[in-house]
């Protein structure tokens, strides 16, 4: 019963945190209201007439159309410099030849031959630079908000007014081919469409070849007004190989041929637009807002002369959304209602031979239409919400009325217009830019009340963790009332709130409901705690941190408030971890536990070895510390750079082996990775063998013996296939793709079955019943003898459970006439940690498979590092035999720090472009179809692998000191005849109870588990609290969307993963505990018979 209440209590604390996180998130992540209004042809934008009375003309709407047809070629991730013309290079300068430079030579040729027909722009993209957001912006002319970034997996139809909707309602035939994201965004909008799957980023050619198959026939057939072709090859090539791969040159040359072919087929009434939706980083990723990601290429061409002047030397920079009003007006359509882009005036000047004055007038009229539309949108939007700042809005409206009046005056009195025209144009442009800037500024809308409430809830949850963790180990901790009462109150509060909302008929907000439940359960807990604990003891005991640990913790929290530190966290965490480790060693030394260091003073002080040895000698702890530092440093070599630090170079080892070019190096690396895998396997088996659990005939151990190597084999085979998939002969392609689908699933399935076995039979002990009958007759107690066979002596530590001994002693005396009954049980002392280590290994293998091959080295380091840390911590934790058991704060803090450090050294960064999307295709090389939760799960497991592993392994912190007991004793036994040993009671010397000490005091054991869980939750909780505070205090900081918001989101998801993992880990220990109890009961019954 107590076990269940411990788990429930932890789950309740987790729920409090979740409620706080949800409340904060709902207030912090910005939202934008999507207006469903539409512009229409008949209705001019705002008061006033339309220019030139163009309504009468056929095919004209707000303005007479200049082009009847448009071909829009969207090349995904076409960065500006991919299209930039390469000028014939100056002699003396080294020729830069990169695979992506100068491959679009047809653009350059057109620009040189027909300067009045074509223009190249550097289009400035608004972050987030993910394809769906860009498509939304490119059709609605609006700003997609941050929260949309996550919905790329399941894109939804656009409800706002957009170009495609305007085109269809004007009766134009829109033909689409390419990326199937458009299918979800514009369902049923196209007269003809050829969709190709977009999610499989490994596939460079399917989409492009599919488009090419249909592009020219469709064009020649003439059954279209607007033709959109969305090519994905360049983007996929960037994701798979990066821009510096020769494959990129191939892809870009193919695009060049496409453009060439289109230009030859264009007719005079057709406009060709070649645009990139966003750029890519030097790694080929996108999603953030670095310079390389937000600069895309935009190329316009028409067979008729379009521009009055020749292109400038350096292409102009324009916002990407400018394309929307421009295209709308050029095609004679109304500008979409929510557009905030500004028309590109150059295109409205009427070709090279028009009069300067009339062309300027045309520009002004286009701008004026645009400004009227934006003004109408701002008016409608500000009426619907209070997002926009009233003062700025007022200023903008004044500016608009002035510009509008000037424009009207200009139309009425053509005299002197030449002089005022430029000022009118400038005013209109100023208005449009101001409006855009205001929208960018204010669509970071925060609900301060919710943010404050969320932060307060998080702080309260942290406080509960601290309070309960200090209280849990005291004997009078009231488990059941403390748990039940708050939960009951929480339910009551939630129901009352829901009822209240029901009566006044408001929409039920789940976030608020959770918050209400949390608060209403929190208050009774506090009251209970105050009554039961707070009045008795001073509050000072609430802050039990040792000084240096507190300092390090505070520093760790302060880190979240500085953007440079969040960016540099990958380097700061190992530094802090190293400081922690050295602090632990120094503390051990300071407390005198390391003196005298035998090895350090070996040559001269050899005689001093006879003094009373401490529990561990100094060199041992020092070696552990140095080993840990070394591992941390080595793991730091696998470092991925955030985009913000240009001088930093990402480790080349993070990329998958498939992207390597050299064959020999590839093979060498492959060998290393497999060696790491084997080493990991061997280390786990060695550990289990050392504590003897491997000898057990139970199914989990059989699985460790036979299933784990099979899993390693499967992993190695999968790596071989994945790294050499492109080199496979064509005949074997089908086989290879089949195998690369089956192998990862098989490994995951094996791991799952192993875990199931472990849950089914977690007790891994070797029982030898009645084996030593003749020997035991000579010994009074059947358990005190050495292991039954000499062979066992080498690796088996005999473990005998003292309770059994005492219980049996009575029975034996009674049943002596029937002959003694003996039971020898081995490995009981490590039964808990053996189950934990097995579970962690089984978890690690599928997670390893989701990462790039070379990350296996990091996983090996991870296991080594946590092993060393556990040993080091165990050296500092005294074993208090009867309890209460406690895990010190520095242990928990160091564990959490190591989880963070491993997050970084497995090649992650808390920013969206750095997510390893490849993980979604492990085992699913063909993609997932419409299923979205499975890829999300795979990518999530890849990203939060270290959080999960460390959280599940958290109970090891409690168990390890007991494990190390056997070690200390064995060492002590080594020098025989030592007087110090003589004084130790023989029982203790021969029977290291190890983890059975925990079973001896079940109450203390459960309290210690509860305390450990609460401490870990506290450490993670204050991290998320610090993140939330940083994000809310610095919400107008320049870096808030770039650094703080992603950090908060990653930290929040990491917290959820960690808390679930923690619950699972503690539940596993509880399961083992229950199984051990029933095992004893069975044994007892067997003895009775």
């Amino acid at each position: 019963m107590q076990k269940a209440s411990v788990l429930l209590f932890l789950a309740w604390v987790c729920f409090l945190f979740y409620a706080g996180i949800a409340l904060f998130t709902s207030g912090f992540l910005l939202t934008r209201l999507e207006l469903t209004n539409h512009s229409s042809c008949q209705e001019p934008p705002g008061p006033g007439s339309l220019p030139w009375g163009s309504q009468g003309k056929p095919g004209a709407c707000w303005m007479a159309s200049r082009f009847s047809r448009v071909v829009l070629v969207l090349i995904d991730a076409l960065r500006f410099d991919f299209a930039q013309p390469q000028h014939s290079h100056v002699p003396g300068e080294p020729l830069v030849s990169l695979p992506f430079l100068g491959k679009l030579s047809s653009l350059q040729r057109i620009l040189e031959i027909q300067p009045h027909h074509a223009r190249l722009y550097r289009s400035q993209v608004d972050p987030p630079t993910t394809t769906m957001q860009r498509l939304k912006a490119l059709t609605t002319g609006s700003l997609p908000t941050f929260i949309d970034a996550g919905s790329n997996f399941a894109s939804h139809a656009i409800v706002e007014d957009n170009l495609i909707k305007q085109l269809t309602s004007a009766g134009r035939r829109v033909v689409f081919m390419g990326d199937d994201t458009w299918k979800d965004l514009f369902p049923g909008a196209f007269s003809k469409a050829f969709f190709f799957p977009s999610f499989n980023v490994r596939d460079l050619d399917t989409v492009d070849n599919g488009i090419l198959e249909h592009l020219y026939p469709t064009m020649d057939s003439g059954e279209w007004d607007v033709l959109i072709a969305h090519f994905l090859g360049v983007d996929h090539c960037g994701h798979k190989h990066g821009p510096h791969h020769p494959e990129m040159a191939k892809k870009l040359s193919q695009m060049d041929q496409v453009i060439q072919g289109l230009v030859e087929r264009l007719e005079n009434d057709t406009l060709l637009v070649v645009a990139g939706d966003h750029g890519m980083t030097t790694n080929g990723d996108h999603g953030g807002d670095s310079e390389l990601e937000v600069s895309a290429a935009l190329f316009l061409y028409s067979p008729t002369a379009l521009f009055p002047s020749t292109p400038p030397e350096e292409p102009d920079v324009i916002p990407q959304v400018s394309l929307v009003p421009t295209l709308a007006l050029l095609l004679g359509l109304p500008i979409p209602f929510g557009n905030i882009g500004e028309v590109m005036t150059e295109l409205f000047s009427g070709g090279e031979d028009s009069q300067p004055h009339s062309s300027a007038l045309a520009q002004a009229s286009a701008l004026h239409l645009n400004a009227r539309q934006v003004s109408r949108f701002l008016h409608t939007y500000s009426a619907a919400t209070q997002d926009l700042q009233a003062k700025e809005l007022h200023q903008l409206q004044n500016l608009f009325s002035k510009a509008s009046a000037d424009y009207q005056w200009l139309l009425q009195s053509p005299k002197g217009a030449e002089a005022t025209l430029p000022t009118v144009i400038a005013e209109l442009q100023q208005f449009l830019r101001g409006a855009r800037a205001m929208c960018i500024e204010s669509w970071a809308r925060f609900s301060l009340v919710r943010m404050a409430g969320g932060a307060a809830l998080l702080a309260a949850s942290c406080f509960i963790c601290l309070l309960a963790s200090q209280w849990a180990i005291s004997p009078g901790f009231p488990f059941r009332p403390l748990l039940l009462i708050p939960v009951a109150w929480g339910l009551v509060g939630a129901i009352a709130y829901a009822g209240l909302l029901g009566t006044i008929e408001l929409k039920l907000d789940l976030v608020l409901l959770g918050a209400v439940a949390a608060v209403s359960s929190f208050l009774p807990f506090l009251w209970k705690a105050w009554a039961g604990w707070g009045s008795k003891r001073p509050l000072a005991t609430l802050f039990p941190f040792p000084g240096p640990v507190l300092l390090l913790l505070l520093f760790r929290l302060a880190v979240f408030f500085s953007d440079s530190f969040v960016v540099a966290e990958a380097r700061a965490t190992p530094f802090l971890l190293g400081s922690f480790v050295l602090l632990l060693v120094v503390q051990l030394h300071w407390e005198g536990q390391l003196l005298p260091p035998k090895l350090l003073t070996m040559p001269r002080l050899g005689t001093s070895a006879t003094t009373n040895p401490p529990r561990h000698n100094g060199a041992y702890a020092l070696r552990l510390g140095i080993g840990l530092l070394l591992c941390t440093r080595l793991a730091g070599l696998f470092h991925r750079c955030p985009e913000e630090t240009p001088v930093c170079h990402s480790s080349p080892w993070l990329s998958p082996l498939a992207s390597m070019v050299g064959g020999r190096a590839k093979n060498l690396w492959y060998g290393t990775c497999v060696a790491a895998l084997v080493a990991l396997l061997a280390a786990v088996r060695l550990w289990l063998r050392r504590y003897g659990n491997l000898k057990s005939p139970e199914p989990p151990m059989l699985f460790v013996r036979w299933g784990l190597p099979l899993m390693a084999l499967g992993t190695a085979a999968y790596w071989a296939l994945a790294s050499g998939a492109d080199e496979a002969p064509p005949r074997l392609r089908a086989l290879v793709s089949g195998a690369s689908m089956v192998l990862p699933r098989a490994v995951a399935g094996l791991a799952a079955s192993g875990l199931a076995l472990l849950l089914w039979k977690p007790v891994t002990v070797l029982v030898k019943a009645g084996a030593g009958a003749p020997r035991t007759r000579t010994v009074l107690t059947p358990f005190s003898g050495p292991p039954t066979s000499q062979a066992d002596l080498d690796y088996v530590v005999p473990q005998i459970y003292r309770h059994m001994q005492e219980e049996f002693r009575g029975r034996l005396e009674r049943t002596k006439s029937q002959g003694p009954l003996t039971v020898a049980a081995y490995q009981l002392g490590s039964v808990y940690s053996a189950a934990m280590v097995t579970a962690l290994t089984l978890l690690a293998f599928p997670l390893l498979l989701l990462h790039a091959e070379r990350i296996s080295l990091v996983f090996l380091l991870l296991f080594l590092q946590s092993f060393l840390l556990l040993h080091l911590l165990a050296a500092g934790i005294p074993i208090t035999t009867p309890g209460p058991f406690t895990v010190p704060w520095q242990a928990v803090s160091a564990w959490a720090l190591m989880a963070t450090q491993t997050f970084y050294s497995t090649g992650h960064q808390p920013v969206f472009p750095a997510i390893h999307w490849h993980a979604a295709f492990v085992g699913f090389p063909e993609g997932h179809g419409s299923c979205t939760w499975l890829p999300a799960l795979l990518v999530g497991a890849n990203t939060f692998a270290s959080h999960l592993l460390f959280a599940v392994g958290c109970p090891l912190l409690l168990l390890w000191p007991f494990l190390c007991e056997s070690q200390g004793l064995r060492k002590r036994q080594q020098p025989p005849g030592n007087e110090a040993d003589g004084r130790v009671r023989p029982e203790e010397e021969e029977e290291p109870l190890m983890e059975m000490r925990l079973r001896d005091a079940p109450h203390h054991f459960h309290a210690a588990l509860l305390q450990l869980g609460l401490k870990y939750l506290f450490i993670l909780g204050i991290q998320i609290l610090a993140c939330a505070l940083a994000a809310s205090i610095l919400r107008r900081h320049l870096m808030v969307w770039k650094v703080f918001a992603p950090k908060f989101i990653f930290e929040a998801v990491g917290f959820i993963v960690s808390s679930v993992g923690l619950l699972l880990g503690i539940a596993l220990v509880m399961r083992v505990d229950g199984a051990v109890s029933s095992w004893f009961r069975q044994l007892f019954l067997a003895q009775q018979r």
Partner: protein
Amino acid sequence: MKDTDIKRLLYTHLLCIFSIILSVFIPSLFLENFSILETHLTWLCICSGFVTAVNLVLYLVVKPNTSSKRSSLSHKGTRFLKCCIYFLTSCFSFHVIFILYGAPLIELALETFLFALILSAFTTVPCLCLLGPNLKAWLRVFSRNGVTSIWENSLQITTISSFVGAWLGALPIPLDWERPWQVWPISCTLGATFGYVAGLVISPLWIYWNRKQLTYKNN
């Protein structure tokens, strides 16, 4: 008796601080373009040289520990050699520890080593002077209740504060202030120097204030 000891301690510490101040000003008389930040490595060498020299001189003059039983020349020679070996070992081990803490492995190796040198000058040299090449004594001094004189107590304080200063000096490196002193290892060396100076100032004061509580086994 005790007060005079504390006074002597104070004077020696003031001399050490003076030597550090001198190391900032004297080189600019001889070298052109000398400044701590721009010609940092030169200053590092000069400062560690000054500190080492002053420590040695003070050790010879003040003689805080009078426990040298044998005083033959060969004994002194081996002792000196041992001290040199210890000093070099400490330099190298500091270097290794810096690398383990995240200093670049190959680039800036000279800078890292000079930082190790100056930290050794602040910590190892006083240890060598006071305790001799005797690791056991060192370990005794740096543990709880291990100090046996005010000299050892002040040694403990200055050494720990030098280390803490160096550690704190590493913290501003990632900040984006773009200051010249944020470059590795300038902030760390400056931190170590400030820590050392702070330790030199604090330790006599601390000992003076706690002189009632402090009882050493030997005194």
